[in-house]
């Protein structure tokens, strides 16, 4: 049996748990680079619109604001889920996680509408350097959110079935890191793709 330090929150109590959290931070470092290369491509290609539309012509502030506020709120609720988890409140943890995933689903719905809309108005992925890099960057973020929905659902089921312990709390905490990270990436997309494009 591994050494369990009960003076710490559940997710840090075993050495394995602590190292998994550190390991996930290192993975997030690699994720920073993944999105940095996508942003690099986008910034380089931003003005290369060929015969296609520019950012200012296709970006709509409405859906972007909905996406931003929905994702910010979901980042807050996953934080509340971890707080509830540390209070040992299983039911509240699960409920906050469900709210988080529902908000994630709303975000994804709006993003899918956006992609449909772009394709409809002649800004498909094959139109220009600008649309290719734009849709690849947005799509990679959206894919991460989609994956997060499945991952989060699996963790909710595990907590519901096995309760809060060293293993499930550790998984939920790592999921919260992932979700907050997606919010951080979105903030950069919101600021330096959408708002910059509409300046």
């Amino acid at each position, binding site marked *: 049996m591994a050494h369990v330090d009960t003076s710490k929150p559940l997710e840090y109590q075993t050495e394995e748990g602590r190292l998994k*959290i550190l390991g996930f931070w290192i993975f997030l470092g690699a994720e920073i680079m993944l999105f940095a290369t996508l942003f690099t491509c986008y910034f*380089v290609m931003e003005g290369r619109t060929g015969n296609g539309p520019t950012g200012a012509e296709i970006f709509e502030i409405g859906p972007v604001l909905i996406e931003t506020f929905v994702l910010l709120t979901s980042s807050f609720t996953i*934080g509340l889920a971890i707080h509830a988890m540390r*209070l040992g409140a299983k039911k509240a943890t699960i409920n906050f996680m469900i709210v988080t995933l529902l908000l994630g689903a709303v975000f994804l719905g709006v993003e899918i509408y956006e992609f449909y809309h772009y394709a409809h108005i002649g800004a498909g992925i094959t139109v220009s350097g600008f649309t290719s890099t734009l849709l690849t960057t947005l799509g990679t973020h959206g894919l991460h959110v989609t994956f997060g929905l499945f991952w989060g659902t699996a963790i909710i089921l595990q907590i519901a079935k096995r309760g809060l312990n060293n293993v499930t709390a550790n998984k939920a905490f790592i999921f919260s890191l992932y979700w*907050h990270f997606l919010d951080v990436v979105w903030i950069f997309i919101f*600021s330096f793709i959408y708002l910059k494009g509409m*300046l």
Partner: protein
Amino acid sequence: MAQFFPKGQVMGFIFSLVLTVAAMLVYFLDMSFGMGMAVLIITAFLQATLQLVVFMHAGESEDKWAIYINVVYGIVIALMTVFGSLLIFNWDM
């Protein structure tokens, strides 16, 4: 119920909403490009720091220095990649 809404995180959320509204003003106030970019850079990096420290609990474990060094290293390489590429491809230097 109040126990589930810790003050630090509620304040963090409100602050992040304020930062988002501040960034939005760039669009609604028709700022110049330079001015707008300055506002966006400040709000985006403040927002990211807020998430990292308040919500991701970056500083709470004994590995905090490894975590901070890892994140700062990632950001430095990210900025070098972005601006290095812009220098070569877009700013013709």
